[in-house]
């Protein structure tokens, strides 16, 4: 029975969901700046920040695509119970997707929205081991005064994948989470190789 797997989520559902939502909002408003969520629950396989984003953002109207490494009975049961979100095997139907760094090399199928409703795109929640330690890149664009140096530990191929699916106003927005921290990467952010 899946009931055996259930675990408590937010201790104060309203306030903590609002805090997490606010953190996601700020992460997109200031791309590349780290937002920290304090005292959030975690689930085996999901970092506290990732789980908090799921609890704050998902509900019955947001089909979720789970990467194979997250597709465990425990995660399925708890997301179904606390968020009530339908899980989908089709990337095209997903409003949100839960990915790891390895899944970033193939972003095909995720809905980039359309010219009339670019907001209907799929938002990708990406769990990383850390938000630091990769190749240093300079992020520029809306919400960034000059530039932010960010060094997310991801394969180079991701940036090409993202570039291919980014035809403004269509595109994919990403939230990177590690531990209790998160960084937002909206479609409007431009990336340049950092000069050493």
């Amino acid at each position, binding site marked *: 029975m899946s009931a055996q797997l259930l675990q408590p989520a937010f*201790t104060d*559902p309203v306030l903590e969901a609002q805090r997490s939502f606010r953190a996601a909002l700020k992460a997109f408003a200031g791309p590349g700046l780290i937002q920290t969520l304090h005292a959030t629950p975690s689930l085996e396989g999901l970092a506290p920040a990732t789980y908090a984003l799921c609890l704050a953002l998902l509900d019955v109207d947001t089909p979720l695509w789970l990467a194979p490494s997250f597709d465990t009975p425990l995660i399925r049961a708890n997301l179904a*119970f606390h968020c009530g979100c339908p899980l989908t095997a089709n990337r095209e139907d997903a409003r949100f997707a839960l990915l790891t760094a390895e899944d970033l090399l193939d972003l095909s199928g995720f809905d980039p929205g359309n010219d009339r409703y670019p907001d209907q795109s799929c938002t990708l929640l990406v769990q990383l081991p850390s938000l630091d330690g990769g190749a240093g890149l300079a992020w520029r664009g809306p919400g960034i005064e000059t530039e932010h140096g960010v060094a997310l530990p991801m394969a180079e191929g991701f940036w090409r994948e993202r570039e291919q699916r980014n035809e403004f106003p269509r595109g994919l927005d990403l939230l990177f989470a590690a531990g209790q921290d998160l960084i937002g990467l909206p479609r409007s952010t431009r990336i340049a190789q950092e000069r050493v």
Partner: protein
Amino acid sequence: MEILMNNLAPHAERQHWIGVLARARRSELQPHEAALRDVEYQLIRAPEIGMTLVRGRMGGNGAPFNVGEMSVTRCVVRLADGRTGYSYLAGRDKVHAELAALADAHLQGTQQRHWLDAVITPLAKAQAERRAQKEADTAATKVEFFTLVRGEN
């Protein structure tokens, strides 16, 4: 058929006791509070108050329409051995919701007979009496309408 019966029967039984617990008064559950809480448990979903839309059909078979919203309190607990108890009840009584969820969890265990006899049967009996009383009171005010034959052939 046998499989169906086996699956259906426990559900029907659980539906019955969850309904009885939801319709009980808090004052009726409180005498059992010490016994219900005398177990290690955690709140999977702490008692929370929300709203739900009630829909109805005119005469039970017309087109569905929205009657209105009502407040609902729900709670889910899990005992140390993994049994989970659920409760959904009308109103805003969080203590009642927690006690009802605990009772549901206890009723799924090996002591089911004991809990049925101690809690559910007396509660169901009290509810049946209240209902019968209400129906008797209402029946006394019943008015039969009839139309006299009018003189137009």
